[in-house]
């Protein structure tokens, strides 16, 4: 039988999916053991036990100085910034994306501008933001919005333009005004795409968040990583990186689940 026709069973699929994760942990364990055998005070690849201890200390024991549970207060600070920024970006993208996609005059006015703006590297703007908006939350949230919103807007504009012309004409023959067609025909059809667009921007959003936190913050997951970097505390950095990844993966899954729950029809057309 050809390789392209051999399909794994569900059980095999699950095992295969887990395999790379297991291999990564095993490889780390071996590497860590080898280095610790050569030098017991090695900090680069701490033993799994040391990592568990660090997680225990950060997540389940209050910090002796502040009385806070460090991991949770960092997570709260970071997610607050991230979700505020993603919320603002989504709202901007929805309004601007729909208007530019639907109204030819606005498209002529804004499409080239948006195309140029979305090419500005957001991190290069970070100093300006810190100078103009201060070192507080505003500048961090603004950085993420600047990094994420233009791409989401352009994605939505494309999606609006992809709607078949026939469909819009049909809505016009049913007597719809521009507003009504926007509300009942265009909006519901681009909302699923907005969610997908948001999912795809989770990665960049985290990137900008951590960059901003690394430079100026007093809490947050990115702040912690760059703080303990000074002490080579890999036992803290590794679990933080895994935790951030986990948060991003869960948000991603949650958003996709929401899309299918709220817009069941958006899953039906696939594959036809």
């Amino acid at each position, binding site marked *: 039988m050809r390789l392209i026709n051999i399909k794994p069973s569900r059980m095999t699929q699950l095992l295969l999916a887990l395999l790379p994760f297991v291999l990564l942990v095993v490889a780390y364990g071996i590497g860590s053991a080898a280095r610790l055998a050569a030098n017991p005070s090695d900090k680069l690849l701490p033993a799994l036990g040391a990592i568990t201890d660090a997680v225990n200390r950060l997540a389940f024991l209050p910090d002796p100085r502040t009385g806070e549970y460090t991991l949770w207060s960092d997570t709260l600070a970071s997610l607050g910034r991230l979700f505020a920024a993603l919320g603002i970006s989504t709202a901007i993208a929805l309004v601007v994306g729909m208007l530019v996609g639907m109204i030819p005059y606005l498209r002529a006015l804004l499409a080239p501008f948006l195309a140029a703006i979305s090419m500005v590297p957001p991190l290069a703007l970070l100093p300006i933001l810190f100078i103009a908006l201060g070192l507080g939350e505003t500048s961090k949230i603004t950085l993420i919005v600047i990094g994420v919103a233009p791409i989401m807007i352009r994605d939505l504009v494309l999606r609006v333009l992809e709607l078949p012309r026939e469909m819009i004409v049909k809505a016009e023959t049913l007597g*719809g005004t521009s507003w009504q067609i926007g509300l009942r025909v265009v909006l519901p059809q681009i909302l699923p795409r907005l969610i997908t667009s948001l999912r795809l921007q989770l990665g960049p959003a985290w990137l900008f968040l951590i960059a901003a936190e690394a430079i100026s913050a007093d809490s947050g997951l990115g702040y912690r990583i760059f703080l303990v970097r000074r002490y080579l505390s890999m036992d803290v950095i590794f679990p933080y990186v895994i935790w951030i990844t986990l948060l991003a993966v869960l948000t991603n899954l949650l958003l996709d689940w929401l899309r299918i729950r709220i817009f069941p029809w958006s899953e039906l057309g696939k594959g036809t």
Partner: protein
Amino acid sequence: MIEVDNVWKEYGDQIVLERVSLTIADRAFVALVGPSGCGKTTFLKLLLGDERPSQGTIRLDGKLLAPEPGPDRGVVFQRYSVFPHLTVLGNVLLGKEFSASRIAARLGGATRRAAIEEARALIAEVGLTGSEEKYPAQLSGGMQQRLALAQALIMKPRVLLLDEPFGALDPGIRADIHVLMKRLWNETNLTVVMVTHDMREAFTLATRVVAFERPRNAPAERDRYGASLSQDISVWPPRVAGGGDPDTLTLSPDRDDPIHPTGPSRDDPAHPA
């Protein structure tokens, strides 16, 4: 009555249609036929208001056609005629919601119940009873086109424009929907203009078949000479909407159907009844 007077359509340097004049009587069923690229779909878009003539005028009941599509002209395309995010019932209701609620475009209470009543009747009319809560992606191609018809008809348009509406359907399904189409045309106050590339479909359904053709089609001449009307055939025996022998009208056999053993549908009088 639709009056098309000396219409030309050009895209830049390319002339697509030239010298098209046509008068379509009320309640006629006109089939536009012709080879591909001869501008019959462009002509339909002109009637729809989606494109504007470069020269000439189109009048509907004596008034110049609005330069954009409107509720007086319903349309069914070959694809994308229904909204994938609405159920069958939602698709049919949409026109009602547009006209009754300017801002929210949604209905509530008694008006909604009345509109649902009307929509259900129309859904039953096109044979989709039982599928009201399904999404278009869950319907077959034939059912989607039935839905598109119901959706257009709820606006009670004066003119129904069909752009190869049944071209993508299997022959059996197509024969069924032809019977439905004839019945709808016969029972509602509709003038129908249909683009088709299927001659048999044209002569099965229409009262009048109009052919578009490019008189000059050499490669060097293609851009500078558009298509115009080359044939205008009234179908025999004449079909009259809302009148005539309903048997002849709705049940005259298609080429693949069993032939009537006797009666006026036979076109070979050598066989006595």
